[in-house]
């Protein structure tokens, strides 16, 4: 065979492969941190998307915990092997949004691919948590939850009580009656999330300078402030009086006594609802979080926790289109409603919420609506969330100091002074990583 012929054959072969790949579906990957039953729901969403059309195919990959998923994604990004879609949890938001160039803003991605996007379609409380200072949505809220108050119906009936509206009511009326009835009145999972971050939102107090960290420039935490210190002083007092119990920094260790019926009221995530229905040994329901009447007469909404999906940069236009189409599918009311029902995470759009209402879902399980109702409460200046770098470590500092308060190793004053000092050091260090 002459050289010329060889070239012709080669180019023909090349042409064949090119054309066949043009017909093949575009493959994209999605790294996530949802294990167990949540992982099954994730796989179901991916399968439904793949079945709904033939142009794109998404492959979900479970990467371990939220922290492990983020770290794996970062390592992959540095090696040029990043997935198209990466799930990043609330505390990691500053890291991924701060690294400009690591992700494509979901808002830009959708409009570049001709998909309508209106931030007003998303329910308040969800809208701006993963947005930048200008209010542009960067990450697509995915599994969004908010802290709510679960209560053991039998326990409250036995004590002749109704769920407390305020912490004053809990302290003076509800808790003593529950204790009398033989229950541990209160427990909660995740003190930094529920009793710190959302405490500031519920009472509309600033959590950090610089517009809670959303603005450009240096941010300082405002945690060493009288209201939150009073909150923790009260909590320590409740613990000493047997009105509150703490089982360590692990989430499940605090949820378990509630499931077993020992604890009457448990502050957890609206996303715990699906799991609790399977594990709780007694009838339970949920209400919105109480507030301190002495701090505010007008309690506000809380914001979301959980995680968002980020479209990673450095991918071909074709793959980005696939990602955009997947986001469109994910935000559709039907998918959101299914996810909401299976897991208890809140639906992220108004349309999905309306659909759930028209289908009568909340008449059969009213507790499932609590999270959304709380996110729909009036907004304030400090209710959209916070944006702080190295926040995972700041949470570690909080968990450490809160544990020390509750075991009597330190005082509330000292603990909050330590948190303020260490958090501000971490924030200053984070600013330098961006330089």
């Amino acid at each position, binding site marked *: 065979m002459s050289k010329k012929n060889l070239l012709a054959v080669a180019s023909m072969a090349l042409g064949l492969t090119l054309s066949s790949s043009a017909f093949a579906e575009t493959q994209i990957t999605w790294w996530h941190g949802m294990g167990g039953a949540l992982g099954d729901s994730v796989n179901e969403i991916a399968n439904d998307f793949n079945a709904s059309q033939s142009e794109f195919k998404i492959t979900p990959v479970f990467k371990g915990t939220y922290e492990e998923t983020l770290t794996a994604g*970062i390592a992959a990004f540095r090696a040029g092997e990043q997935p198209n879609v990466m799930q990043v949890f609330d505390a990691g938001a500053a890291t991924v949004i701060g690294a400009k160039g690591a992700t494509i803003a979901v808002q830009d991605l959708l409009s570049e691919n001709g998909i309508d996007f209106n931030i007003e379609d998303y329910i308040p409380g969800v809208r701006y948590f993963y947005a930048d200072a200008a209010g542009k949505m960067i990450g697509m809220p995915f599994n969004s939850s908010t802290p709510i108050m679960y209560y053991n119906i039998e326990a409250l009936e036995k004590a002749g009580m109704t769920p407390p509206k305020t912490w004053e009511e809990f302290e003076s009326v509800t808790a003593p009656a529950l204790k009398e009835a033989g229950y541990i009145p209160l427990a909660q999972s995740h003190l930094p999330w529920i009793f710190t971050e959302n405490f500031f939102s519920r009472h509309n107090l600033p959590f950090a300078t610089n517009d809670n960290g959303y603005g450009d420039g240096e941010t300082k935490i405002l945690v060493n402030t009288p209201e939150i210190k009073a909150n923790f002083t009260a909590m320590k007092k409740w613990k000493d009086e047997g009105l509150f119990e703490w089982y360590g*920094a692990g989430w499940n260790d605090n949820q378990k006594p509630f499931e077993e019926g020992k604890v009457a009221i448990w502050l957890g995530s609206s996303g715990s609802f699906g799991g609790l229905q399977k594990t709780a040994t007694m009838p339970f329901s949920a209400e919105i979080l109480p507030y301190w009447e002495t701090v505010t007469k007008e309690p506000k909404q809380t914001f979301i926790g959980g995680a968002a999906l980020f479209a990673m940069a450095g991918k071909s236009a074709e793959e980005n289109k696939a990602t955009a189409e997947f986001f469109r599918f994910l935000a559709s009311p039907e998918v959101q409603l299914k996810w909401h029902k299976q897991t208890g995470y809140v639906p992220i759009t108004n349309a999905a919420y309306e659909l759930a209402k028209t289908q009568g879902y909340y008449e059969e399980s009213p507790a499932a609506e609590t999270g959304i109702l709380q996110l729909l409460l009036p907004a304030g200046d400090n209710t959209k969330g916070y944006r702080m770098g*190295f926040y995972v470590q700041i949470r570690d500092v909080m968990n450490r100091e809160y544990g020390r308060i509750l075991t009597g190793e330190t005082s509330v004053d000292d603990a909050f002074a330590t948190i303020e000092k260490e958090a501000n050091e971490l924030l200053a260090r984070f600013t330098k990583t961006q330089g």
Partner: protein
Amino acid sequence: MKRASFNQLGLPVWLLLPQLVIIGVFFYWPAAHAVRSSFYLEDPFGFGSTFVGWDNYAGLLASAQYVKVAVFTLGFTFLVTFFSLSIALVLAVKADKVIRGTRTYRTLLMWVYAVAPPVAGFLGVMVFYQGNGPMTEFLALFGYEFRLGVNYYDTAAAMVAVATWNHIPVNFIFFLSGLQSIPQSVKEAAMIDNRSGTRRFWDITFPLLAPTAFFLLIINITYALFDTFGMIDALVKGEPGNNPMTLVYKVYVDGFRGNDLGGSSAQSVILMVLVLVLTVFQFRVMDRRIHYT
């Protein structure tokens, strides 16, 4: 005496090259990288970084928390090494004297070695579980409320107990083979000189075990410092909170969970120096103080 030598440089270099490449790529290059990044504060995605000189190190030494973790690590290492060595020695001495069912007895003492540290950690969580773990209930009989994950010292005690338990078999195996390699004639001679078993043990057996014991000492220190990671992670369930942790676990917490690459690298470099010191100490003492027969 004639020494074998190469005539030119080329061949020896070629022969050494594979090993040099492996050492270079897998040991020196990552180590150099860690040293480099310990002087920077870097965006985890690699977009920005600031040279901060010794700031990362100064920050660590000024941090009360880091000092506390270091002190805990020292105490933890000391306790684990002490208990696992002494208990294993007692077991080995006793096992050496067993006449019937030797094999079964020894196997029963050794199987724990097969338990991987994270599994040991999970077993620890079960045994010390809040409220209804067997150990928790046992301690409650004496009126002590053991609270794993809540009380700092309770968690520390559980960590020491699990780490010690997990490492006794290794020490046991080495001590036992050390005991069995002591010549029968020496033992018999000692028996004639002194009837007291205790005296014979301290004067004859223990010095002859010294090389084994010293080797085990180093092994145990490195085990407690570095290999207990999985056990600690299982015991604190990934959320250290107010619980104790070791220096290695802190590297993970800050670097992998917190994405603080600079601070975590500085901690790694400190650990590297620690290992270096330990190695130098080991070789020095081995040369001077331990006599191999």
